[in-house]
């Protein structure tokens, strides 16, 4: 990074108003959210009948979306905690991007679970009458905990930046100024305050790792503790965590490119960041590929009758186009792109990130639904419509609305707060200058 004057850094990194592109982007997201909300109102009024969910495929794209959100949220712990604790400094400009992705994703993971419920008005019963032995209860507890920890991890490093932003009263406007004052008027840049903040961030970085592992392991146990073809695996926890790290890192690649090009942050999110992040994605894709081989090759070698139907459906049957698309786009093609130095240039890395995220969404769908269509004990005289699943427009709209909602949270966050930590960037620049 070039030597940059403090004022220049502040000027570059302060949140900017939406331009025309930004306004169109927000309008599109709001429109998708509104459609999703309308579809959800229809679902509330008519019940789950408006969906394609039936006795066989009782978990469709809502739960696929939930698993996807939980997965992508894991990136917060990877970039913020793992890289911070291992003293990797190049990730500093990416920490806030990773954290806001984590916060918005985990918040919508919780929401999408409620959407999947036929009677959301009974949600409170989960807390009143929850069964401690059930992984569903663990998931509720761990998601809530992870959301709180992620919010704190977002908030503590933001405090010095709030102080900086409060200095631009006219630029901020009344509402934003009040918001900044509410959140950080007490921050006076005192050494004692920095000491407490640093300590808190370190504690959070240590705490978030087991919680993040727990959230995804518990989510995998929602499936693995159920005796069904495709889910009956001891490998599921590690398989889910590796996949979660991959999709999260892919998401960061996309966000890096979008913020860099939209806010002209080329001096802060450099080609070197893409290069390093690209290497991380390759490593994670290879690990996830390894777990996929384990997950499919071992049962395919034994080919037990019930597993055979499920696996052949994925390899050569009705789900094979999605399966091979997901495997190729989430792992194989990104590896091929990012393994070369030229592939780790921003534009190609961005494309690889998109492939990873899109492929990973379909991968979650393949984990959830095909298994449900092949139960060990099929229903007697099962209606033909139960044996297939294709989401209705309401399901697509709600799932799309939730994805748009998560993007909207990230977009508004970037409008209100600096997406790259200003204070940390200044400190690191000073360190560079001294060195």
């Amino acid at each position, binding site marked *: 990074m070039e030597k940059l004057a403090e004022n220049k850094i502040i000027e570059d990194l302060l949140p900017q108003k939406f331009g025309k592109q930004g306004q169109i982007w927000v309008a599109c997201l709001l429109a998708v959210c509104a459609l999703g909300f309308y579809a959800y109102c229809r679902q509330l009024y008519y019940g789950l009948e408006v969906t394609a969910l039936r006795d066989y495929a009782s978990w469709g794209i809502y739960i696929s979306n939930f698993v996807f959100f939980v997965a992508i949220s894991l990136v917060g712990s990877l970039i913020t905690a793992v890289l911070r604790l291992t003293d990797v400094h190049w990730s500093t400009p990416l920490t806030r991007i990773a954290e806001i992705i984590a916060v918005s994703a985990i918040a919508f993971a919780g929401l999408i679970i409620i959407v999947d419920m036929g009677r959301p008005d009974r949600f409170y019963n989960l807390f009143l*009458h*929850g*069964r*401690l*032995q059930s992984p569903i209860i*663990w998931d509720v*507890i761990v998601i809530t*905990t992870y959301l*709180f*920890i992620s919010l*704190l991890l977002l*908030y*503590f490093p933001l*405090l010095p930046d709030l102080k900086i932003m409060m200095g631009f009263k006219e630029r901020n406007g009344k509402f934003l100024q009040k918001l900044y004052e509410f959140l950080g*008027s*007490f*921050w*006076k840049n*005192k050494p*004692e*305050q920095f000491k*407490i*903040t640093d*300590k*808190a961030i370190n*504690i*959070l970085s240590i*705490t978030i790792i087991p*919680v993040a592992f727990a959230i995804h392991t518990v989510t995998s146990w929602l499936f693995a503790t159920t005796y069904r073809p495709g889910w009956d695996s001891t490998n599921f926890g590690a398989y889910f965590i590796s996949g979660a790290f991959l999709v999260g890192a892919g998401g960061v690649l996309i966000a890096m490119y979008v913020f860099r090009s939209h806010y002209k942050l080329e001096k802060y999110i450099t080609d070197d960041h893409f290069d390093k992040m690209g290497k991380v994605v390759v490593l994670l894709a290879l690990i996830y590929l390894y777990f996929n081989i384990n997950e499919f090759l071992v049962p395919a070698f034994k080919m037990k009758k019930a597993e055979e139907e499920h696996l052949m459906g994925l390899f050569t049957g009705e789900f094979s186009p999605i399966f091979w698309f997901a495997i190729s786009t989430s792992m194989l093609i990104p590896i091929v792109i990012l393994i070369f130095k030229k592939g780790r240039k921003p534009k190609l890395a961005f494309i690889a990130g998109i492939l990873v995220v899109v492929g990973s969404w379909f991968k979650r769908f393949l984990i959830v639904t095909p298994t449900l269509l092949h139960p060990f004990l099929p229903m007697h005289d099962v209606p033909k419509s139960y044996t297939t699943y294709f989401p209705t427009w309401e399901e697509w709209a709600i799932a799309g609305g939730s994805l748009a909602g998560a993007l909207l949270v990230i977009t508004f966050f970037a409008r209100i707060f600096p997406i790259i930590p200003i204070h940390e960037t200044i400190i690191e620049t000073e360190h560079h200058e001294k060195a």
Partner: protein
Amino acid sequence: MRKHKLIQLIVLVIALVPGILMAQAVEKNSLSLNLKYYNDNNVTHHLLVQAKSKIDGKFQQIPNIPVQFYITSDADKANLLGKGVTNEKGEALIEIPPAAKAEWLKSPNQNFVVVSTATKKFDEGRGELAVTKAKIKVDTAEGRIINAKLVALVDTTWTPIAGVDVIVGVKRLGGILNANETQTYPTDSSGSVTAEFKRDSLPGDQKGNIVLVASVVDNETYGNLTSQLVVPWGTKSVYMTNFDHRTLFARRGHSPIWLEILAYAIVVAVWSVIIFLLVQIKNIKKLGVE
């Protein structure tokens, strides 16, 4: 015009001929009705009919056949005992109603008739059965000995019957478990059989009760006769349930203690950290105000 109508008529006939031929091609199968008589513990009597037909060279059980049961003869509709329809095993069953008592008491021998009317696939069927009224009584003697006595009605007197095979055992899962290694016992001149009970460790109910059974099965003269007696010769069964135990698969509030300790300890530990950090925010605030 006439020629045109003639062509229409020919086309119509050609179109109908295959249907007519097909209709003629359907052949009905003959139906066999096998009737059986049961005397249950000298209290109730029932009749069972088995409907069978030879299809593709094999006898098959025929379901959904409507049947009518008669006592003595089917010539008089007053003798109708009842109606039934064969189930998926080709069987229909009827209890002999109290209304048939007068007819039953007329003679020591009794005829029964079962008839079925013709259906689309099967001809009408008919089955007859003649039985001599008999009864069997099971009893016990000291030393876990089972006695059974078979008597038949000769004129107006219940007379012991010799040389009839009797199964003596214990009622178990819908069948009869032999009392010892011997399968059947022929009745002696006094109509009696004696069997030693050797099933010492047989599980009974909560009081140790088991049901002794003496039975004559498919006898040509007497039909099926059964007598039962409850005796406390089994071992007591204690009802065991782990419904209220703390297990991973138990209901809410019954999770294993180790799981509760572990789960709550983790939750408390992590949330203590979160609360500690919230307190740190308060401390930062304090420092800012000072």
